[in-house]
Structures are given as structure tokens and as C-alpha cells.
């Protein structure tokens, strides 16, 4: 048995095995997000899919991006999404069914899109040629320096070695200000709203607005009137 087993075992590329593992996890969980009806399960499958994608990033040698994927995406964005799910998961909204006709139509459109994308992926011949030997280089320092505007990484193929290459200081600043503005805007949008009451000078204690009688929830039609 052993001589039969030994050569194929030596021929197995463990990088490929790990890639197949993470790729199967990412793809199957992404499909499970589509197929699941329960929104809580969808969130759970999405967490698994994004974590497996972080594993793919590690395997591609992008360890800084993989770590950021785990910390920001899985640890931040999806926790935010799970909070949203918890806040809105009242009994009738946990699973909203889609009609069967829509499902069939979406499946056909998705299959067509997937066919086009796969054909494009296998079209270019150089994309199917893996590198034979690449020296491992840590990417955290070059990325950090590039975000500060200084490039210390090796230039990409085809670039002359003495060419001036732009860093990413300006996009970094734009993104940070953008993130600040967006978070302020999100906090403003999602704040707890106070009912507009008349000025307290005019109506001192005579008319108490019947807040509790109106109820915390509006009727669906009254949304535009309120603000």
C-alpha cells in the first residue's frame, strides 16, 4: 500500500489543498446566503464566507489585507449588520419569502452572469500560469509607507526602476475624512427622534402633547408628515 500512496502524497500541493478548502467554504457560504430565508442564518453564513475569504487573502500573500478583512469586515461591519438584524428581527420579518417565479428568474440571470464571468476568467492565458518561485515579502510595511506617500516596495513588472511612483497619501486622507463624515451622518440618521413639540414658552403646562397616546410607532402612511 505504501509505494502506491507515497508518490501521489508527495505530489500534493498543500497550498492548493488549503486554497480549495477556503475557496469551497467561501463559495458555499455565499450560495447559502442566497438560498437561506432566515435573516439570522444569512448573517451567520455571511460571516463564514467573509472569514474564508480572509483565508484566501492570506494564501495569496496579502497578509495585511487578510488581517484587515478579519478585523474591519468580520469584526466591525458584520457585527454592525448583526446588530441591525437583531434590532429589526421581529417575528414576521425574520424570514420574508420570495415568490418561486422570482427565484427561477434570478437563478437564470445568475447562471448567465456566472457563465460570462467564468469564461472571462479562463480566457487570458497568462492568468492560468502560476508563478514558479516567488520570494516571500511581508506587506505591512510597504502598505503603511505607501499610505504615507512613500513607496518602498519593488516596482511592478513593466515599470522602469527609476520611475516616480505615486503614493496613497491623498486617497488615505480623503478616505479618512469620508469615514468621519459618514459616521457622523449615520449617527444623525439613526438617532433617537424626539417629537417636535411647540415651544415651551408658548405652552407652559397647559397642553401636554399626547405622546404616549400616539404610540411610539407611526402608522405607515404618516411617515412623511412627521418630519
Amino acid at each position, binding site marked *: 500500500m505504501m509505494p502506491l500512496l507515497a508518490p501521489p502524497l508527495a505530489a500534493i500541493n498543500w497550498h492548493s489543498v488549503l*486554497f480549495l478548502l477556503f475557496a469551497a467554504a467561501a463559495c458555499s457560504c455565499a450560495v447559502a446566503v442566497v438560498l437561506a430565508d432566515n435573516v439570522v442564518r444569512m448573517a451567520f453564513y455571511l460571516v463564514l464566507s467573509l472569514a474564508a475569504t480572509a483565508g484566501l487573502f492570506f494564501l495569496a*500573500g496579502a497578509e495585511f489585507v487578510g488581517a484587515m478583512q478579519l478585523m474591519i469586515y468580520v469584526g466591525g461591519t458584520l457585527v454592525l449588520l448583526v446588530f441591525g438584524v437583531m434590532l429589526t428581527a421581529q417575528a414576521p420579518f425574520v424570514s420574508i419569502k420570495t415568490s418561486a417565479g422570482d427565484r427561477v428568474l434570478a437563478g437564470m440571470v445568475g447562471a448567465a452572469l456566472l457563465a460570462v464571468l467564468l469564461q472571462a476568467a479562463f480566457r487570458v492565458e497568462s492568468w492560468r500560469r502560476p508563478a514558479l518561485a516567488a520570494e516571500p515579502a511581508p506587506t505591512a510595511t510597504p502598505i503603511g509607507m505607501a499610505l504615507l506617500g512613500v513607496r518602498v516596495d519593488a516596482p511592478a*513588472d513593466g515599470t522602469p526602476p527609476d520611475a516616480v511612483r505615486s503614493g496613497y497619501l491623498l486617497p488615505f486622507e480623503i478616505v479618512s475624512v469620508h469615514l468621519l463624515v459618514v459616521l457622523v451622518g449615520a449617527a444623525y440618521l439613526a438617532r433617537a427622534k424626539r417629537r417636535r413639540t411647540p415651544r415651551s414658552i408658548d405652552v407652559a403646562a397647559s397642553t401636554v402633547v399626547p405622546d404616549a397616546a400616539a404610540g411610539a410607532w407611526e402608522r405607515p402612511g404618516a411617515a412623511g408628515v412627521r418630519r
Partner: protein
Amino acid sequence: MNGICLAASHGVGVPLLAGLLSAPVSVAHYLVVGAVLFTAGVVCMALKRNALGVLMGIELVLNGANVNFVAFSSPYLQGSGAASLGLDGQVIALFVILLAAAEAAVALAITLNFYNNHATVDIDRAEDLKG
């Protein structure tokens, strides 16, 4: 492992798996994963009636694009003659992650607002602007 070797010796469909296990990973492998994630995201966006489901579809689409960026920037996946994105792809992937975080925050705020006003998260009920 034993099963793989045995099936590879006298199997028909399994040589494909054996070839996948022994061949090194190239960019095309990553592009397939990115295509599947992208397609799942698009179908999820089109199909889900829950607003949070649509958000999850957007996350999947962005993630599929990120997989492609990282694959094109990786030095491990492309032959020496091919042009690689270098570090640029990884930096762009980082920006995509940050913008996805921002987009999720705003979209979640809008969803919660919609939920407060309409007492539902079914986006088919968002028809106030229908003429």
C-alpha cells in the same frame, strides 16, 4: 487522502480533483472564486425582500471584487512574464474594505429609519414615491 489516491488511480471524474490538488494555484482559480461571490451577491441583491438581505448582497459583491484585486496583486499567483498589479491592488482592496464599512453604516442607519417609520423591513413596502 487514501481515497483520493485510490480514486485517482481508477476514477473518471476524480483526475480533475487530483489535478486541482497537485497543480499550483493561479490567478484563474481566484477569479473563479471572485466570480462566484459576485454572482451570489448580485442574485442576493435582486432576490431578497429584507433590506438587510440586500445589504448582505452588497457586501458579497464588494468582497468578490476584493478577491480579484488581491489575486491580481499577488506575486505568488502569476507567472514571471505577466504583469502584476504589485502593491496597488492590495491598497485598493484596503480602500474597498473601508468604504464598505462606511456604506454599511449609512445603509444600516437608513434601514433602521425605514423600520421606525414603516414598522417593516420589507423593501417592497417602500413605495411612498410611487406615482
